[in-house]
């Protein structure tokens, strides 16, 4: 194993939990798996996370049901609540944990979204965050008044405009008790908000006061160069995909820090929280066996054929999942938007060629190949070894924390809270109690970007 230098010997591990919603990685077929929509499931997960002193509870968003070749995709967990509504209900039954709502900038109206987010922030006593996503396509747009009107190249421009309006709305009220002291209007009146740009013509008087943390924390989830620049200029936290291979995570962190500095911010101003999974066992062999079991149950035969069929652009459900990949090339050039964002526009033949090479080199069936592609998903081991791995990740400066997706709900955090957290605490790498009540405090963030007297001031 390559050794990476410890650059932050006292850094603490932070945890968030990502309640996935739409996915095939929670094993819904397990008898222990609960409802994916009953409030009780969300309640159990968030209470466990709060007991484990997690910084935040995250909800994702997807604004159209996914399809496979023109029919609704029927293999994955699907059907989730509106994030802000659900988090508001959860706010009332929790006291410390942060509440992160993924909300798309392309299909929302800035004044309304800013108000809803700030409402959650005020009601929760300063625990809200907005995970800004920009997934866009005409296919999703078919559910909205404007349709698929936005050119893909403009999506981060629109995101920036939305955020600028949101900040004006959030900063319009004078600072109240508990809000960070700063440059808020001191005459006791609410500022008028006005934004006139190529994408927005917006004028309003806001109604939402500031919260104890000022306004919602900004998360960003997106990986393109524009996405990273948007985060470097605006975000408090990046929710990244780089949570399995340390060298890759370090490279990503260095890139983000470079971009933050270029944007005029201190290099540690953007916290890095990759999405990841954690599987613990009593012994290394036990953990390995559990991880193998989880991976095989995440990728059912039907799911394996569907994932490969999406790349090949045809129905492969008649193929043998335990047999080889199709001998012919994919019948489509590019992927459409209907399977979600991450692979949109990817070149199918390139992917197929990579997969075929891997399958041939390692003698993998269709299902084994998909499992292999899925398997670099975080951490496994005994509570002790997992804790040590996590600490190394944080102390080499690769990440600030982890956004854990449990492989089963609602019980999937129990092991982590009951077994990994104490190991981290014993090593002085995890808090033993919440020391504040706002998400800004948990994350150790500076004042909001708009409320700093000078860039870099603590």
């Amino acid at each position: 194993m390559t050794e990476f230098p410890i650059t932050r010997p006292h850094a603490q591990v932070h945890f968030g939990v990502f309640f996935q919603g739409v996915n095939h990685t929670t094993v819904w077929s397990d008898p222990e798996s609960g409802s994916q929509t009953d409030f009780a499931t969300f309640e159990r997960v968030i209470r466990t996370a709060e007991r484990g002193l997690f910084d935040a509870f995250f909800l994702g968003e997807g604004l159209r049901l996914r399809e496979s070749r023109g029919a609704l995709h029927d293999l994955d967990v699907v059907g989730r609540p509106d994030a802000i509504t659900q988090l508001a209900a959860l706010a009332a039954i929790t006291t410390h944990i942060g509440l992160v709502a993924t909300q798309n900038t392309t299909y929302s109206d800035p004044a309304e979204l800013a108000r809803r987010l700030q409402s959650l922030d005020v009601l929760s006593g300063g625990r809200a965050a907005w995970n800004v996503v920009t997934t866009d396509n005409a296919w999703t747009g078919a559910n909205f008044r404007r349709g698929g009107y936005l050119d893909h190249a403009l999506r981060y421009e629109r995101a920036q405009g939305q955020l600028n309006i949101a900040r004006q709305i959030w900063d319009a009220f004078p600072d109240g008790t508990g809000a960070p002291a700063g440059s808020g209007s001191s005459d006791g009146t609410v500022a008028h908000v006005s934004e006139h740009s190529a994408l927005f013509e917006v004028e309003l008087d806001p109604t939402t006061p500031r919260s104890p943390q000022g306004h919602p924390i900004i998360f960003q989830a997106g990986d393109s160069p524009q996405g990273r620049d948007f985060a470097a200029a605006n975000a408090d936290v990046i929710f990244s995909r780089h949570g399995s291979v340390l060298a890759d995570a370090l490279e990503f962190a260095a890139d983000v820090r470079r971009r933050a500095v270029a944007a005029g911010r201190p290099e540690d101003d953007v916290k890095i929280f990759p999405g990841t999974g954690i599987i613990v066992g009593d012994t290394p062999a036990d953990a390995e066996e559990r991880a193998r079991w989880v991976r095989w149950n995440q990728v059912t035969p039907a799911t394996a054929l569907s994932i490969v069929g999406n790349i090949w652009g045809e129905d492969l459900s008649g193929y043998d999942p335990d047999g080889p990949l199709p001998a012919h090339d994919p019948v489509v050039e590019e992927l459409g938007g209907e399977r979600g964002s991450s692979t949109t526009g990817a070149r199918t033949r390139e992917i197929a060629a990579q997969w075929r090479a891997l399958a041939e080199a390692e003698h993998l069936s269709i299902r084994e190949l998909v499992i292999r592609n899925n398997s670099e998903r975080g951490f496994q081991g005994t509570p002790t070894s997992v804790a040590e791995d996590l600490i190394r990740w944080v102390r080499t400066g690769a990440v600030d924390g982890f956004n854990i997706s449990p492989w089963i709900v609602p019980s999937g955090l129990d092991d982590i809270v009951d077994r990994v957290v104490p190991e981290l605490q014993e090593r002085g790498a995890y808090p033993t109690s919440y020391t504040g009540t706002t998400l800004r405090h948990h994350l150790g963030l500076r004042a909001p970007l708009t409320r700093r007297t000078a860039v870099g001031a603590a």
Partner: protein
Amino acid sequence: MPSSPFFVGLDADGAGAHPAAAAVTGLSGADLVSGARLARTVRQAENAGLTFVSFADALLPAVPGSPAAARLDSVTRAAFVSRTTTAIGLVPQVPTTYPEPFHVAAQLASLDIAAAGRGGWVASVTRDAATADAYGRAVVGDLAREARDVVQVVRDLWDSWEDDAVVRDVATGRYIDRDRLHYVDFVGESFSVKGPLITPRPPQGQLVVLAADGDVAPAVGSPARPGPAEQLVDVTLVGGAGVSTAIGNAAAARERSPLAGINIEVVLDAGGRTGAERLAELRASTPAGVRSTWDTRALQHVGSAAGLVQLLTDLATPGPDGHRPVDGVRLLPAVLDVDLPVLARDVLPTLRAARLVAAPRPGATLRESLGLPRPANRYDVRAPAAAVSV
């Protein structure tokens, strides 16, 4: 006996329904929007046995530039109290004019899930042009058409999942049965929506839709939607300068919706002062330039608790034909902190003792509390006969 119970709803917005409520109570913007205060108010309303609370809302403040006009989003408020209560209906006002219908449908369905079936919706109309500017959109000219289309597509979206769409069929690997999910393919004059919703069908099937009289017309038949006009509103709320006018309006509204109730603005005698004195003070304290929500077309009761009990008794008591004059009321208290305690102490217990109203049962859905059936799913093609013949 009338089949449905007499309902008594309460608007629980901010400091109260009168625009000077915050000024006379001295509540700051931060007090007005605090979660603790909200939870306390709704708990008090639940303990008083009220059928539901509504949360008035608008994107823009009643008094531009005033921190005392602070107000949080209504669905978010309703969701926040969904887990601090167990019986009372939670009914946010959400306008039909500018918000995205797809988001509205998902938000309200999610409220109903969190509230275990106690969700409702006051589908309102936004008439000012300033809101169009806040959205950065052109002013909606045909407000009635927009309201009708939005309520229709939201109702379609709530049905776009059948109740049993999640099948978790381990043998085939299918989590959902795609035949029990439906594209709504709504095409209106100003927008279209594909569907299905991202959120499953809410526990009530359809949330209870309330609307002010005249705001939401029945859906019309069209080539895309043949068949009779569809009623889009469950509870119509009417006003009227006097009691008999209001009763007449309610009788007319019953033609267009299963239930009709009367909005009543109340200013009660309290704290050694008469309602009339309190109202005079409120009038004198009303800030200049207010976009008034008071002195609407609602009926008003300014005076004693006993007088209000008498009024509600008259409205709730069936006549010789066995029918009540109206199905219920929604009370708009001028100042929540003053009027709600009087309602809780001197008005509702008397009505309950006389068996004219009943407190909702913990765990009951709002539909059950209102005596409304749970609707069948419009997309469910299985014949009821086939279902029972198994």
